[in-house]
Structure formats: C-alpha cells, structure tokens
C-alpha cells in the first residue's frame, strides 16, 4: 500500500508551512518522513543542503538533534519533571551540567513555565504539557520544528495560546516550522504557505491567501467552507466583529424553516452585500445566533432589518455601520 506518492514540497527557511488534510490523507506519514521516523521507499529529503536519505544511522541521529518535533499527545516522560523532560535532549549531547541548567532555565522562560520546573506532567494542563514539548523540541537549537497535530488535543483557547507561542518563536528565532493539521483555524492563524493533502497526494499548494481565497479543489473548498460556517459552525470572536466592515447583525428565530427562508432572501438582496460570518451561542447553548455583516446604503439596511423582523426573526444590531 502506498501512503504517499509524488509528494514534492520546497519549504523556505524561516517560514511557517502548513499541511492540511483529513485523517487518513497521509499527513502523519508525511511529517514523519521529514525526520525519517518513516522511511520513504523512494525519493529524497533534504534539509539545509543535507540529504537525510543518504545518511547512516549514526549520522541520522546527529541530524535529528537539529530537527525539533512536537506531538498531538505531547509524548512527555511521566517519570520526569518539567525540567528533567527539557533536559532529555540535552543529555544526549555532551553538554556540561552548568550549561545544561542555564539552557533549561532559558527555555522555561521562553515558553512561560516559570515556577513549574519541578512539576510532573500529570500535574499540568494540556497547554502546559505542550509548552514543555515545545521547550524540549527547541533545546538543541533546531533548524526546523515539526508539529504533528500539536494543537488537536487542546481546547480552542489553549490552541490559540500555543499558536501564538509558535508564531513568536518563528519570528524571534527565525525558526522554520512545518505543521500538519486538520483544522483551518491553525492554518489561518500562523501559516505563511499551505499544502492540501488528499489521498496521499498534494492537491493544491501556495500562500494561505491565494489557496483559500480561490480554492481550486473540492477538498480545499470544503476546508474553506467549514471555516466560514457552512457545514461546521464556528464561534465568532469579538475581534472578528470589530474588524468587519459594515453593519453587523445577530439573527435568531424560533422556527428554523422560516429562518432559513428569511436568511436566504436576505443573502439574495441585490441592493446589499451580505456575508454570513458564523454562529454565536448565547449563555445557554440552546440559543444560536447567526452573525451577518451587511454593507450598503443605510436606508436599504434598515428596510432589510424591518423585513426580517416582520417575518419573525429576532434581530440585534451588534455594530452600526460607521
């Protein structure tokens, strides 16, 4: 069985490169091939001018020390404290004890885990565990950081904080990051370029902007669609609303059928430019609000809102056009 075929990727130094695909697409195999945890049957992998596929076992071990990797399930040693986990890769190189300790302290500061040095992984939250994973991966000053679904086991808020950290590391250290994910938000948030993987093949690649503003393949359209709330609703953040142009209104109705009807009529209004931003949930998750932005003449907007209200849709104006 072929997990991957004809995969050709050129990743630039210092960029954040994302590979997105559904489970079973071959993402995991692909990222594991970069440090040869999976051996390709044919082809080459070259990092910084060095062909990994030509190295013997000892040389490969050396080379792996300059490729950091973080994992979905963190893969920390339960038996070691935070500091001891970070020390692990440093123990593999012949670093003096004093230097090792300095480096550990520096890494702990970098990932924001001060005060947790002697905690065991079981005492940490998921986000903290991933921070340990990141510190451990960075210990030997790698050239590349591989992220294997690094945020998939985390809640959205923690995902955000981990992505922010990765983005900071990318900027301050100029570290090249290669990540695989099935989440659009991850790609949107930190990637410069993206490749879409489907059935073991790269079906589309380019800058995040170009690929997702004009998706060519059905699968890419699905990922983009998911993101704008067509099939899987995503929650709207306050910041999204603030940065949206035009009037933002929040719609809800008791009757779904009527609501769909009214919404499609609104979307079809030729006098206005209407865009569905996503869904928001009230304090009780029962109440679901569709957030819509409307651009157009204020008179037409007012009229459209009145029509919606007459049809039994609850309309709240979240932000007036300014």
């Amino acid at each position: 069985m072929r997990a991957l075929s004809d995969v050709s990727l050129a990743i630039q130094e210092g960029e954040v490169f994302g590979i997105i695909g559904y489970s079973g697409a071959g993402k995991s195999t692909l990222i594991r091939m970069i440090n040869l945890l999976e051996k390709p049957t044919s082809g080459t992998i070259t990092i910084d001018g060095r062909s990994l596929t030509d190295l013997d076992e000892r040389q490969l071990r050396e080379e792996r020390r300059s490729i950091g990797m973080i994992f979905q399930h963190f893969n920390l040693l339960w038996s070691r404290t935070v500091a001891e986990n970070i020390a692990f890769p440093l123990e593999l190189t012949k670093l003096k004890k004093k230097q090792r300790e300095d480096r550990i302290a520096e890494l702990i500061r970098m990932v924001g885990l001060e005060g947790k040095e002697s905690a065991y992984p079981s005492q940490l939250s998921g986000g903290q565990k991933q921070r340990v994973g990141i510190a451990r991966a960075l210990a030997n000053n790698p050239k590349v950081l591989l992220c294997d679904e690094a945020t998939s086991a985390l809640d959205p808020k923690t995902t955000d904080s981990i992505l922010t950290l990765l983005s900071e590391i990318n900027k301050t250290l100029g570290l090249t990051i290669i990540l695989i994910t099935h989440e659009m938000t991850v790609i949107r948030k930190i990637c410069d370029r993206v490749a879409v993987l489907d059935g073991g093949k790269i079906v589309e690649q380019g800058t995040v902007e170009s690929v997702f503003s004009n998706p060519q393949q059905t699968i890419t359209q699905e990922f983009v669609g998911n993101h704008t709330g067509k099939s899987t609703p995503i929650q709207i953040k306050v910041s999204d609303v603030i940065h949206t142009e035009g009037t933002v209104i929040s719609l809800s109705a008791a009757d779904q059928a009527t609501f769909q009807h009214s919404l499609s009529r609104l979307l079809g209004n030729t006098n206005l430019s209407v865009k569905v931003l996503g869904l928001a949930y009230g304090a009780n998750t029962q109440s679901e609000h569709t957030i819509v932005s409307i651009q157009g003449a204020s008179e037409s907007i007012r009229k459209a809102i009145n029509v919606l209200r007459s049809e039994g849709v609850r309309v709240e104006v979240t932000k007036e056009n300014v």
Partner: protein
Amino acid sequence: MFEWLQNVDWPSMWLSTGQTLYMTAISGVFTFFLGVALGLLLYLTAKGGLYENQIIYRFIASFVNVFRSIPFIILIILLIPLTVIIIGTMIGASAALPSIIIGAAPFYARLVEIGLREVDKGVIEAAQAMGATKWHIVWKVLLPEALPSLSSGMTVTLIALIGNTAMAGVVGAGGLGTIAYNEGFQANNNTITFIATVIILVIVFIIQYVGDHITRRVDKR
C-alpha cells in the same frame, strides 16, 4: 495464658526466620536482575521491537514458558545436579537459591515484559526524533517509565517467592517451611506450625506494604 508458647523452641524459630529472610533477600536480588534482563530481551526482540529478532525471542520465550510451567517442587528435584555444581551441596539455605531464582525469574520476566509494553510508544518515538540511541531509549525511557510496573511486579514476585522458600524446606533448605514441617507437623506440635505461619504472614504483609509504598512513590502518572 501464654503457656502454650512454651512448646516453641524460640532460638531455632528465629534461626529459621533468618534463613527464610536470607533466601528471600538473595533470591529476590537475583530474580530482579535476571527478570529485568530477560523481560527486556523479550520486549526488545519481540515483533516490532527495537532489536526485533524472531530466533532470540522464541528461544527466550520458550525458556521462560518452560520454567514458569514446571511445578516448583519438581523443579527443585530437577535442578539438584545444577545446584551441586553451583553451590557445592544440595542441603541448606544456599542450596535452595538456584531453584528459587530459576523458578521466579521467568515469572518476573513476563511481568517486566508486560510493564515495558505499557510504556507509551509515542514517548519512544519522541526520543528517536530527538536522536536518542537504542541504549538511551532503554536506560532513559523504557526502564524509568516502566518503574511503577517493575516495582509492583517485584512485590508480587517476592511474595510468590516466599511460598517457594517454604517449599524448599523439603530438600532441607531450612527456614520456616522446614521448621513447620519437621518440628510442627511431623512431631505433632501444632503450635510451631502456627507460629511459623504467623511469621511468614508478617513477612508477606511487610513486603506488600513496602512494595505498595515504593510503587506509589515512583508512579508519577
């Protein structure tokens, strides 16, 4: 009230206790190292292991299975020639050691193997991704991560092993088993049998308690 205790020859009772403790301690130490070594070999040479090797795996596995299946009382007799070669005699506490160790180490090796299998594959993969050698993986990942299992397995093995030291009394090993059988059962002195049993129970309880305590201490999961 305690007149019945006068039937007991206390100096020889304490001597027997000492012999039991001696056999347990020495064979416990050997069983531990031999069991860890065999367990590691089983784990490493098994299918998908770091040193996958069908021939070595099958060889060790059959050795372990054979010696685990032979009833201990038969094992003692079978090993008499070997004992004479190693210890120089077939009588006494030391003479019981080879058969106790060979009886217990394969049992412990299986527990070690199970414990090692429970170590998260992801952690081993992470170590490989960091450029760890196989040696590093054994010493820095596998054994430390499996320590709680090694400890609880050793507790179980030690207790089974005490049972075997008592049985070894049959070949004149001495210890509480011998005194319970010779002085107690055969001389029809039930008090001695009773006291020997109580002492064995106390030893078992202490081992269980200490073992549980150590297991809890090393378990950071």
